[in-house]
């Protein structure tokens, strides 16, 4: 089965198994490989990944789905930063 992230890693020949993040039009942020949320509010959501903390800034942020390894953030996403 076609996997977008695997295909990217294969074509770029860069090994990246820590996490995957997809930003859809600044309204949806899909994250694979999170290790738990650190901060949760309507303006900032930050979560741990393997070797980094990702901070998402925006407005009316909401964790649309939170599972063991994946999460989906909805709202107006202004910035995604790795700390």
């Amino acid at each position, binding site marked *: 089965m076609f996997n977008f992230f695997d295909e990217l890693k294969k074509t770029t020949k860069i090994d990246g198994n820590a996490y995957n993040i997809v930003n859809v039009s600044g309204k949806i942020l899909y994250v694979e490989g999170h290790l738990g949320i650190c901060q949760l509010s309507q303006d900032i959501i930050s979560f741990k990944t393997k070797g980094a903390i990702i901070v998402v800034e925006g407005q009316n942020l909401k964790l649309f*789905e*939170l599972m063991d390894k994946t999460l989906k953030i909805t709202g107006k996403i202004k910035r995604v930063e790795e700390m």
Partner: protein
Amino acid sequence: MKKINFHYYEIKGLNQERFFNNLSKKYSIYELNRFEKSRAEFKVSFFDGEKVKKEILAAGYQILNEKKGGIFFIFSKLLKSYGLLLGIAAVFVSYFVQMPFVQRIEVWGSQNASEIKKFVDDEISSRQKSKINTKALEQKIMAHFDNLTFVSVAILGQSLIVNVKSGIRPPEMDETFLPIVSQYDGVVTKIELVQGTVLVQVGDIIQKGQILVAGYVENAQGQTLNLPPKANIYIDVWVQASETHYDEKVVTRRTGNKIECCSVWLNSQQFYSNGKQNSFSCFEIESSEQILCKNNILPFVLKRDVYYETVSEKIVSSFEDEKDFIINSAREKCLQNIGESEIIKKEDVLILEGAGFTTVKYIITANILVSGEDESLHEQA
């Protein structure tokens, strides 16, 4: 499915990140919105709702609001609506209790439906389905109402459906048919049955008037159906005729002479006579009367007597001289009693000699066909 069937919580408490991290390892969390530092709302699967609630309370959070939604929630709500369940149960119980009974009677296909309905209502002793004999009811309706040609009774659900058709009954339904009866004495040699019930067998000796084929049949259900009997029955019959020859006999014959006497009468009074008188010693007389006036006032009657002169002669002849003629005459008599289509199988001559006379008996054995088609006259029941 999880979004449609959800369990919503609004909780209050601090350090919620750790709680949600732990909770997300066990359950999926949806639409998590932390709108205040100490307050957050989220949804979980409907089935995980109670477990999550325990987790929330175990973590020391306060549940501010709790909602349930979705199809499963509606079902679970229905299951806890004991009044509704009781009502449904009562409907089912009442349905199954009244199932074995006929609630209404419907009559289809007849203008006098109300009469039939009333008759059926009176006839059925019980409304219990198992005690209603539809076949017997059909026969009773058919017997009670003359103008019906078809009756069907069936129980559909809780209705007793009586389907009837009015019209002219075919003659076979009401008529009885005359059987095929033998017109001869004889022996049955062959039977070709078309329809009916044959009452004789090949080899049976039958008498005149005996029933050969009856006008009914019995079907597989044991019912007797009337129908015109049709069959070809072949019978060997013996037809005999006799002729007697006398050695001496006196024959009287007319000579040709005659005297005609006429007279007119009014009641017992003679008014006119032609005056002629009979002068023959041996004669034969022919008399006739004719009414002259066609009224009762003067009933004149013309009487006419014609006298023929006769002579008697003694004829002496031997049987041997006239044997062939006598035998042929007896055969002719015999043949008069046999039809043209009948097959002559055997002819016998029996000569009986007496004192001064000889009797010839001619016997013909013929095979006769008795067919039912010509004799299938039917009579009204």
